[in-house]
C-alpha cells in the first residue's frame, strides 16, 4: 500500500515531497544523483518572460542555521524553458509545478498562458513574493487587493490549477491568503524567504551585493509552521508548505500545521540526496507515530480530537 500519495488540484502526487523553486534549478544537476521520478513533484526555478541575469555577486551569505540569498530570479527566460528544460524533464514520471514571476501583470499573464500549456506542467506557482527584485514581485505579495487582481488575471489564462506563493514579509498573512482565495487561486504555497541582512565584520558593509537577501533554511521553520497553522484554518485551499524542512519529522510537523504537501528548498543545497532520503524515511516515521496514511497528519494541530479514527498512538 502506498501510504504517501496525496491528491491536490492538478496534482496526483505519489508522495508529498517536492524540491522548492530555486533550490533545484531545472533538475539537471540533481538527476546525476538520483532518478527524479522518485519525487512527488518538482517546482522549477522561477521563469520570467525574458531571460534574467539576476543580481551581482556575492549572492549568498550564511547565517545561523540558514542562509540569505539574493539570486534575483536568474533564469533563461520563457522561450528556453519551454524549448529545452521542460522537454528534458518530460523523461521523468513526475508532475512539474512551474514557478511564474514577472515585474508587471502582463508579464505574469504572458508566462502563465504559455507555460501552463506544456504537457508536463500540471500546476503553476505564482511567485508574488520574491524579495530580491526591485519592481513588481514584492508589491504583488504585500498588498491584498493587488494579489487578488493578479491571481484572477492569471487564472483566466492558465490551462492548469494556480497556486499562489505567499510572502512572509507581511503583517497579516491570513489577509493575503484570503485575498488570493477570493481571486480564484486553487492552492497556496508558503512560505517564501524573509528579508534579512548580514554585515561583514571587517568592512562593516553588507555582505550581499544586493544589500538584503531572503532568509531560508531551518532558522525560518517556526515562522512557516505558525503561518501555515493560521492560514490553513482561515481558507479552504490546500497548502504546499515549505521553510527549513530537513527531515521526515519536519515534514510531519508541516502536515500537522495544515499543509497537504511539503517542499524542500535550502536542504537540497547542502545534501543533494535529501529529498529521496526524506521519502524513504517517511513510511518508518508514520509507522512509529501510528499513522496508516500520511493524510491523517494534515491539520492535526488544530483539528478536534476524535477526527483521527485510524490513529493508533
Amino acid at each position, binding site marked *: 500500500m502506498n501510504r504517501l500519495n496525496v491528491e491536490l488540484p492538478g496534482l496526483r502526487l505519489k508522495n508529498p515531497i517536492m524540491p522548492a523553486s*530555486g*533550490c*533545484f*534549478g531545472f533538475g*539537471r*544537476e*540533481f538527476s*546525476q*544523483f538520483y532518478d527524479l521520478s522518485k519525487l512527488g513533484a518538482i517546482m522549477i*526555478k522561477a521563469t520570467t518572460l525574458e*531571460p534574467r*541575469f*539576476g543580481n551581482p*555577486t*556575492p*549572492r*549568498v*551569505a*550564511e547565517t*545561523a*542555521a*540558514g*542562509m540569505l*540569498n539574493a*539570486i534575483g530570479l*536568474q533564469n533563461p527566460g520563457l522561450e528556453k524553458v519551454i524549448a529545452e528544460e521542460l522537454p528534458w524533464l518530460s523523461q521523468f514520471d513526475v508532475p512539474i509545478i512551474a514557478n511564474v514571476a514577472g515585474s508587471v501583470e502582463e508579464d505574469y499573464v504572458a508566462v502563465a498562458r504559455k507555460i501552463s500549456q506544456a504537457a508536463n506542467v500540471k500546476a503553476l506557482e505564482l511567485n508574488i513574493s520574491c524579495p530580491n527584485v526591485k519592481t513588481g514581485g514584492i508589491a504583488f505579495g504585500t498588498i491584498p487587493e493587488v494579489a487578488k487582481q493578479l491571481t484572477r488575471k492569471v487564472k483566466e489564462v492558465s490551462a492548469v490549477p494556480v497556486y499562489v506563493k505567499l510572502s512572509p514579509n507581511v503583517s497579516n498573512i491570513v489577509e493575503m491568503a484570503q485575498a488570493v482565495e477570493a481571486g480564484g487561486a486553487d492552492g497556496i504555497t508558503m512560505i517564501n524567504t524573509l528579508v534579512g541582512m548580514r554585515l561583514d565584520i571587517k568592512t562593516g558593509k553588507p555582505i550581499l551585493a544586493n544589500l538584503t537577501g531572503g532568509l531560508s*533554511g*531551518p532558522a525560518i521553520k517556526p515562522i512557516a509552521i505558525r503561518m501555515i497553522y493560521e492560514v490553513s484554518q482561515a481558507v479552504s485551499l490546500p497548502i504546499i508548505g515549505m521553510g527549513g524542512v*530537513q527531515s521526515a519529522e519536519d515534514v510531519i510537523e508541516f502536515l500537522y500545521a495544515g499543509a497537504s504537501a511539503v517542499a524542500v528548498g*535550502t536542504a*537540497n*543545497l*547542502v*545534501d*543533494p*540526496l535529501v529529498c529521496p532520503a526524506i521519502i524513504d524515511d517517511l513510511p518508518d516515521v508514520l509507522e512509529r507515530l501510528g499513522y496508516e496514511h500520511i493524510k491523517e497528519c494534515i491539520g492535526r494541530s488544530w483539528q478536534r480530537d476524535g477526527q483521527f479514527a485510524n490513529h493508533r498512538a
Partner: protein
Amino acid sequence: MIRKELCKILSQKEIAANIYELRVKATLVDDIRAPGQFVHVRVTNGIDPLLRRPISISAYNQQTEQMTLIYRKEGRGTSLMVQLEPGMELDILGPLGNGFPIEEVSVGETALLVGGGIGVPPLYELSKQLVAKGVNVIHILGFQTKSAVFYEKEFSKNGLTFITTADGTYGRKGFVTDVIKEVSFDCLYTCGPTPMLRAIEQGFPDKRVFLSLEERMACGVGACFACVCQSGDAADTSYKKVCSDGPVFRAGEVVL
C-alpha cells in the same frame, strides 16, 4: 560522476601558520579528471554552519584512492575542520567543477604556475602532472608573510620556484606580478585572489592563460545560481557558474 561520500580522515597537520594539510581516503578520487577540481565539504552534521565549504583538491592518487586538501583556518567552517582527526569521517561532495587543462601545453614547452595564498594548493597537483608529461614548470608563489609560506620544498622538486611575501619577511618582497615579468613561458596557470587574477589577465593578452576563480557558493553543483559571473563575450548575455562551468576559465572567458 559526482558523489556524496563519508570519507575517512587519514591525517591532518598544520604545515604553516593556520594552514592545514588534510589527507583523506575516498572512492570519489576515482572520478577526479583534472588538477584544479574541488570538493564541497560539510563541516558539521548539524545545521550550523549550514552550507558546505569549497576546497580545492591539492593532490590525489587514484591507485590508493587518497587525496590531499590544504586549507587556511578562516572562519567558523574551517575552524571546525581543524578538529578532524585520523579515523574520523568527513562528508564530502565531489569531485566538482572543471580543472586546469594540461593538454593546452606541449612536451618541452614551459608552463608558469602562479599562486597567491590559499590559491597555491591546486597548483601542486597541476605541477606534478605537467612534469610527468614532460613540460618545464616554473612556480611563483605569493604569501602574506614568512609564517604563511608552505610547500616550497615540494614545488621546488618539480621546477624553479620563486616565493614572494607582501611584507618581505621571506623570499622576494612584493607580489607575484613583480616576478612574472622576469620569466618567459608558453602557458600560464593561476589561482588566487581576484585582483591578482585580473592583473595577470591584463598583463598577458597574447599568451595562453588559465585562471581559477573563487566565488561564494551554496550548492556547488550548478543548481542555485549563487556563484555566477558574466561571460567575457559582450555579445553573449549568458552567465557562467564558477562551480560547474569553472572554477578554471580561459582568460577572457568571463569578466573578472
